[in-house]
């Protein structure tokens, strides 16, 4: 596989002989989902075929997404509906699932039973709430009387919440007055693209409000932080030096790949433009260099020729 470690990535178009040299030795690929496999309700043309060809080549395909709206069960159905075959929930690592696993570790990991672990106040939709319950945790209700009356709230989890309100923000702050109460965010994304080119606010903007009100910094589970990779390694034991990260967002996917020691491929069907990667490459800042991908492709369909027929 390509180089990871010292030196700046080269942002080279991946094709031809080099494509075969990079894909050949790779044992697995991690894919972001939105903007990589699909855009809205449309699969990226050729993406289902790529996954099928990877399977036939004996290479593992796993999925790592900052999107905290859906449970992995819903994502499995989505893969199928959009024409991707053979993707099971266990292959999918969403920030919703990984946040639930993180909270399970921190609240239940010490051997505390379900009753002693405390509850989680979730700012998010039913997909996220379901993953937290699925991890064996109990949720704080909304609009409750004074805190402390029932089992204490031991964590506030900020996810994508299109029903976010000032009232919920105030309630979260009430719980966070207890310094033992964790503040966790599913992902740092400031916005997400909509299919018509507009943008919708992301978890990052809601987390900023909660951090400002509470005076606390959130623990962020999603990319570019590496916790989701730890979850992947624990379940599938991947070797970073034989694994490629494929994503569309420089500040999350590519930096995540860098942080986890993976070679990175930027696909241009999503958020980031090639000019942005080139600007980071030309920048003097050390932090900017970490956002430069090793390779780029116009779409992940361009990877197909790198696989044996």
């Amino acid at each position, binding site marked *: 596989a390509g180089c990871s470690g010292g030196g700046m990535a080269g942002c080279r178009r991946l094709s031809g002989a080099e494509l075969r040299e990079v894909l050949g030795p790779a044992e697995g690929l991690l894919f972001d989902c939105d903007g990589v496999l699909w855009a809205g309700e449309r699969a990226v043309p050729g993406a289902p075929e790529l996954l099928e060809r990877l399977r036939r080549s004996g290479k593992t395909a796993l999925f790592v997404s900052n999107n905290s709206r859906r449970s992995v069960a819903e994502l499995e159905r989505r893969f199928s509906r959009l024409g991707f075959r053979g993707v099971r929930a266990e292959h999918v690592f969403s920030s919703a699932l990984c946040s639930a696993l993180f909270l399970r570790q921190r609240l239940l990991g010490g051997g505390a039973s379900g009753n002693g672990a405390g509850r989680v106040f979730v700012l998010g939709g039913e997909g996220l709430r379901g993953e937290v319950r699925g991890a064996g945790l109990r949720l704080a209700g909304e609009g409750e009387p004074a805190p402390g009356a029932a089992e204490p709230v031991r964590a506030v989890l900020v996810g994508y*919440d299109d029903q976010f309100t000032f009232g919920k923000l105030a309630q979260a702050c009430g719980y966070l007055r207890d310094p033992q109460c964790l503040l966790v965010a599913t992902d740092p994304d400031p916005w997400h693209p909509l299919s018509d080119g507009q943008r919708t606010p992301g978890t990052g903007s809601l987390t900023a*409000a909660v951090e*400002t009100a509470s005076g606390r910094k959130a623990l962020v589970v999603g990319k570019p932080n590496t916790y989701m990779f730890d979850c992947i390694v624990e379940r599938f034991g991947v070797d970073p030096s034989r694994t490629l990260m494929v994503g569309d967002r420089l500040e999350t996917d590519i930096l995540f790949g860098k942080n986890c020691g993976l070679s990175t491929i930027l696909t241009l069907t999503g958020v980031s433009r090639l000019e942005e990667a080139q600007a980071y490459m030309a920048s003097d800042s050390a932090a900017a260099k970490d956002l430069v991908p090793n390779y780029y492709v116009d779409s992940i369909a361009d990877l197909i020729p790198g696989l044996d027929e």
Partner: protein
Amino acid sequence: AALPGPAPADWAQAPLDPAVRAVLVGFDEHFSYAKLCQALRYLLRGGPGCLLVGTNRDHRLPLEGGAAIPGTGCLVKAVETAAQREAFIVGKPNRYMFDCVASEFDIDPARTIMVGDRLDTDILMGNSCGLTTLLTLTGVTTLDEVKGHQESDCPARQSLVPDYYVDSIADLLPALGD
């Protein structure tokens, strides 16, 4: 106007008012994700031609007993993060409001005292504008906090230190002859 449908993808189809050229973020106990969406849409549509203004950056509004409700600063931060741009802040400690007062009332900073209870808004603004600053202890700030800033090496913290303090503004009465 009512939102067309339950989801953000629907809200993004609601017509935008063509005359809007500024988004103003103030204290809004009815703040919601839907409003945040609309703010983002106006800012993206207008680019630099649409102003982003915040009334102030206060993190918290204290209530009795040590509780607090989120301040306007939280809502400003949410909009700034989604739009990836910085708001122009009108309120203290920025000097805009002092400039308004000074121009209306012909104030000489060298002969004016700023009285307040918050170091990072009232006192900082007063110090930045060349006023004499007076801290009153009937509000959020304790003398220990002031001492902490005074003893620090950091110039930013030094600018939070008032010239004087009183336990309450009633302590000013004896100085006013009758």
